[in-house]
């Protein structure tokens, strides 16, 4: 099981999937040509990460903008993380939004209400 780093592009976020640190971090924009394909590789990594016995993950989202296909992928992302959250595994989510970015805040809020795993909404100033 290896850590993976995907470089940021104009239309895809950087993705740091860190086995030793036990975290996954996304940063940047997300409007790829095929969002479902892009996020599937991340979901596969998470499945493999837990299959090899990991008991916790910290998921950090520092997204600037994402399109509606990516929003659907974010929901799938949360659903996957929630699936692993339970008695023997600890999932925490940190959702960053730029101060005054009500779109990013509101979608984060909706996720935080929908899912029972610990979910922090954190503002930052660009």
């Amino acid at each position, binding site marked *: 099981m290896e850590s993976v780093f995907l470089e940021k592009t*104009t*239309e895809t976020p950087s993705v740091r999937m860190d086995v030793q640190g036990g975290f996954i971090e996304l940063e940047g924009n997300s*409007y790829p*040509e095929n969002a479902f394909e892009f996020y599937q590789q991340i979901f596969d990594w998470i499945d493999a990460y837990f299959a090899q016995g990991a008991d916790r993950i910290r998921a950090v989202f520092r997204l*600037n*903008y994402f*399109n*509606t*296909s990516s*929003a*659907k992928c974010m*929901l799938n992302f949360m659903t996957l993380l929630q699936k692993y959250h339970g008695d023997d595994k600890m999932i925490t989510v940190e959702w960053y939004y*730029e*101060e*005054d*970015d009500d*779109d990013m805040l*509101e*979608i984060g809020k*909706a996720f935080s209400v929908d899912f029972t795993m610990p979910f922090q909404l954190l503002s930052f100033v*660009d």
Partner: protein
Amino acid sequence: MMVQEKAQDNSYKRFLAMDVGITIVTYEGICSHEVVVQLGQELEHLLAASTGVRFKKVFGVFIELIQNIKNYSAETVLAQNGTECGVGIIRVSEESLCYTVTAGNCIRKDDVERIEAKCAAVKHIPTAELRSYFNDRIRLKQESTSKGAGVGFLDIAIKAGGNWEYEFHPVNDDFTFFTITAYIAKAKIVEEDAKNS
């Protein structure tokens, strides 16, 4: 499918004749993924510094509309990267209180009723309730024919604070020209005033 008709030329002329303020970007042609990314970068370069966080709304509407053309225009050509991509026209412009993003493309006449019903349904939702509809919609199973999340019109309506409109102009027996215009207020207070007026 090419729609090389005099009538379609008129659709583009009518589009360009719309009074939507000072043009920042106009693009007509194939909306391949590369074009989407390139134009998005130019828009960011031209607007981000002056509009701050409001820029994200203009950018978001622009990306959603141009990806709509790419995925759903009835007029398509084969792009350099080998994928079939939609053809259409998109413009971002500036007025004193808002930015305007307008997009137009041909759709099949058979699809007019379905798309019109979709637009009308979103238009009917009170602005304050758009977000909860959006959240509900992305939780539904993806429509099988959709290349996106099926919530594009809702997203545009949210970012425009409910200030958006759509039009259909018949081109010929087979095609109709479909346009969407979204108005994004330059300041939050203006958006709320527009809502109350």
